[in-house]
């Protein structure tokens, strides 16, 4: 594994990456004028692939927030070219892990005992590796098969370094309020929270209880006796990742069931639990044969204020005109919770978003509740991304938007890959009432 580095070196590497990615397109631009349409298209695709390969390699090596950024980019279907998404998708599912000697030393440093002294058996090689840690198979002394999540050493410092660098280079965007400091702070807080394994253990236990009413959801049990600072031992869930499910050519019926359940899970969390799993990368979902959904990573969880959730309830499936003063008043109430006023540009952007995206995907008329929305065509994703970008330009983003957008982007990208048909409004309406 490539562990955390000093802020200067990480910043230099990010700068070199930007130069390298730019370089991938310089060759294409130089030849552009002299090529026919087909050759031009081919060259452009090759440039996308080269650029994405550079980005993927560097994100993998930098890990931490850089890799999180890559994972987020890989979900931008409809915005980024297919070749790029294909390359970046590798960041979703795996990264080179720590070598076994480092993993053992890190476990021992965290738990005060070597893995073989605690477990009946412990696999030295990880079966999954991600941006902040890796997961090993193990068997407890009592004979139970478990997954042991192990954090990379020094990862908290790497996160702090990346954000120090990011704050410096984004000073201009902060001054113009294109990237409000409050949003960067929210992002840093969330990523740092993912390195807090004590908090993640609590999240796992809470969500296991809170999501119990959804019988198709599986949340692993935590083994506190085998967990510590930088180590979480949990029940091993069975299931396949999205890629494996899709490789098995699932029936449209299964695609629709999984899609509907993912949507139900999302809105149940937002509206009933008032807290949600905000790390939508595909490695975090395990799909069972019967359409069950296992959630395995609760590092990134966003808790919402009940007052904020009330404002969501009031605008979801809003039946009237979304440019009306009544609808605007509901949005104003949401901003007032943060002591802020909605500026005219944001008011317009939110109304446009509500009309062009939400009204289409979630028709508010009750008579259309059973009508499924077909996620196969990526046009809806393009609209979602365009309206999100438009909202960002209005410089009036709330910190909650960041995590909701992260969860929504992941949800929509998954629904698109599943080519699912889901009655969105019916599901939202089911949970619209108070908890």
């Amino acid at each position, binding site marked *: 594994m490539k*562990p955390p580095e000093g802020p200067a070196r990480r910043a230099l590497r990010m700068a070199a990456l930007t130069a390298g990615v730019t370089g991938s397109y310089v060759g294409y631009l130089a030849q552009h004028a002299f090529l026919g349409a087909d050759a031009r298209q081919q060259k452009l695709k090759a440039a996308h692939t080269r650029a994405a390969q550079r980005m993927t390699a560097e994100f993998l090596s930098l890990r931490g927030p850089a890799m999180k950024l890559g994972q987020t980019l890989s979900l931008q279907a409809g915005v980024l070219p297919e070749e790029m998404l294909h390359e970046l998708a590798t960041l979703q599912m795996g990264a080179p892990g720590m070598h*076994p*000697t*480092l993993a053992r030393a890190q476990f021992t440093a965290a738990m005060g005992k070597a893995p073989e002294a605690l477990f009946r058996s412990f696999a030295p090689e990880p079966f999954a590796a991600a941006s902040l840690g890796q997961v090993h198979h193990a068997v407890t002394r009592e004979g139970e098969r478990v997954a042991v999540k192990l954090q*990379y*050493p*020094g990862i908290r410092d790497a996160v702090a370094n990346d954000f120090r660098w990011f704050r410096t280079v984004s000073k201009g965007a902060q001054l113009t309020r294109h990237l409000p400091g409050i949003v960067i702070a929210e992002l840093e807080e969330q990523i740092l929270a993912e390195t807090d394994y004590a908090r993640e253990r609590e999240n796992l236990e809470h969500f296991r209880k809170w999501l119990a009413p959804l019988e198709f959801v599986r949340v692993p049990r935590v083994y506190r006796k085998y967990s510590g600072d930088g180590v979480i031992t949990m029940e091993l869930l069975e299931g396949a990742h999205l890629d494996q499910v899709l490789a098995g050519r699932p029936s449209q019926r299964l695609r629709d069931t999984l899609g509907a359940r993912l949507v139900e899970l999302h809105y149940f969390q937002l509206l009933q639990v008032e807290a949600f799993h905000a790390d939508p990368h595909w490695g975090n979902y395990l799909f069972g044969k019967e359409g069950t959904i296992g959630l395995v990573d609760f590092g990134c969880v966003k808790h919402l204020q009940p007052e904020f959730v009330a404002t969501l309830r009031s605008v979801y499936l809003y039946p009237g005109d979304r440019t009306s003063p009544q609808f605007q008043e509901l949005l104003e109430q949401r901003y007032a919770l943060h002591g802020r006023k909605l500026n005219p540009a944001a008011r317009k952007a939110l109304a446009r978003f509500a009309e062009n995206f939400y009204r289409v995907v979630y028709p508010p008329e009750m008579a259309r509740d059973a009508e499924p929305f077909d996620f196969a065509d990526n046009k809806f994703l393009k609209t979602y991304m365009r309206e999100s970008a438009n909202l960002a330009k209005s410089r009036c983003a709330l910190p909650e938007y960041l995590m909701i957008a992260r969860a929504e982007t992941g949800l929509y990208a998954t629904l698109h890959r599943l080519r699912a048909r889901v009655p969105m409004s019916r599901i939202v309406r089911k949970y619209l009432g108070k908890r």
Partner: protein
Amino acid sequence: MSTLSHGSVPMARPAARRRPPAGRRARHKQLTRDRIVAAALALFQSKGFEETTTRAIARRARVAEGTVFNYFETKEDIALHFLELEVSHAIAAVRNHRRLRRASLEEKLFALLESQIAFLAPYERFIGAAFVQALKPASKLGWSRQAAELRTRYLAFVQELIEESLPKGKPSALAWFGPPAFWIYYLGVLLYWLHDASPGKQHTLAFIDRSLKLGVAVLRKGTPA
């Protein structure tokens, strides 16, 4: 420890029936030596290297002060003996680990350093003092023949690990500069570890992993990556 160097077995008494007195004596000597070393290390750690007297060591080891001198001329000889044990332990840990035979050079070197640090960890305060002591021109820890032999043995093993990882017969900067560079690097790692206040010294693990990857890559290519 071998008993052969301490005397021969009398012909009239078969070795299988009764152990020779020479062997018993050797075992006794070894136990006494171990007791003295353990007592000294505990005192170096709790009271400090400078402050520990041979009388205190003798008292803690429950031997006469003169007995301590029979085994070790000075406190520094005890420290040197401990460092010899540390090197032997680390070399054996890497050599006897079957999976490591196929591991990358970076992982083998990581395993070597990690075993050393794990061995030294209970005596961190003493290691800090020994580090300073070794810098003194008259110190046996830094400049004696025994210290040089220990360093040679350690670096020969590092050389062995490096050569195992290289294609046979090809000249390499790694083989030439690797061992001496590794010695300086090892001292740097020790200093980093001594000053590392992170929980479980996790920053040291990250530092070793990162720097080994970088160092090996630089020496492999002959130019910075």
